[in-house]
């Protein structure tokens, strides 16, 4: 209505676009919605494992296959990477670029250690003849844990990208927003891993 009036008065029409005032305000919510959709992917994979997790096809069961001390170390790696990412965010708040980069690097190393242990476990299982084609249990196991591992892989790629960005451009508003999104992604993956080690490994070994 106001615009019509101004056009009639022969002025240049003015549009009140408030979008460009808060580019970061909606990013967090949008990224959170993405994480929730990702959560649904994992819910479906968990449900699949819940249905197929006892179908061993006369093959090895979780108690035969899973090495719980290794899983415990794996869990510790991911938990350490979560807290070190928290330290990186705290350093970002203090505007300390070098410290932020240091803690991001530590996070990346813990993430890589997690991934290395998981790949070792997968290689070990496949070498023992317990590959994804052995039984329905192993198919759903490899799909669920593999999807989580793939997320961690892309998280590390994203982390390295952001480390390059921060070292080149510093802790500018754009990089802060990106680090915030990766923070949510990284902690979300740790939340999913809680479900994996409880439901897949511990409950599996329990029988």
């Amino acid at each position, binding site marked *: 209505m106001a615009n019509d009036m101004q056009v009639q008065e022969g002025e240049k029409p003015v549009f009140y676009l408030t979008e460009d005032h808060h580019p970061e305000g909606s990013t967090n919510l949008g990224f959170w919605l993405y994480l929730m959709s990702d959560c649904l992917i994992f819910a479906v994979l968990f449900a699949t494992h819940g249905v197929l997790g006892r179908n061993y096809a006369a093959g090895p069961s979780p108690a035969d296959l899973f090495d719980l001390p290794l899983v415990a170390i794996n869990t510790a790696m991911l938990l350490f990477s979560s807290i070190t990412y928290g330290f990186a*965010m705290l350093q970002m708040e203090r505007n300390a670029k070098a410290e932020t980069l240091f803690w991001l690097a530590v996070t990346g190393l813990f993430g890589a250690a997690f991934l290395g242990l998981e790949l070792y476990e997968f290689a070990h299982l496949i070498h023992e003849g317990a590959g994804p084609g052995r039984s329905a249990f192993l198919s759903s196991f490899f799909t669920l844990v593999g999807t989580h591992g793939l997320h961690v892989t892309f998280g590390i790629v994203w982390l390295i990208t952001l480390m390059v960005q921060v070292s080149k451009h510093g802790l500018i508003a754009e990089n802060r927003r990106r680090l915030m999104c990766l923070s949510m992604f990284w902690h979300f993956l740790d939340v999913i891993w809680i479900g994996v080690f409880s439901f897949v490994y511990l409950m599996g070994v*329990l029988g």
Partner: protein
Amino acid sequence: MSSHPHAPAREDAANTHHGHGHEAGHGSLKGYMIGFGLSVILTAIPFVLVMAGTFDSKLLTAFLVMALAVVQIVVHMVYFLHMNPRSEGGWTMMALIFTLVIVGITLAGSLWVMHHLNANMMPMSPEMMKNMP
């Protein structure tokens, strides 16, 4: 008559948006350390329960493992993901609740339906199983 009746309103809107933009998700060192400590404890207990076989009852152990997992997920949400009912005007919490409902339907529905499907299958003898294609 004023030629810019909406100008003050626009400023107000911009101010409130700026006020909201920075409140989401900032932790403190204390918060992270509390979350980390709780997570370590909540991870160690289920591993010890299963690896040492503390309880004879599998059902009790399974219940404890899943209950501790739920508690730890809440701890991560609060101390690491900084969830609170006020961030983004409550919309993150709304999205989370909606997702939890869908996740609950997916998990419970799948297990329920597939369990009944299994239970209603024709019983098979080992000989029939052997002759299966």
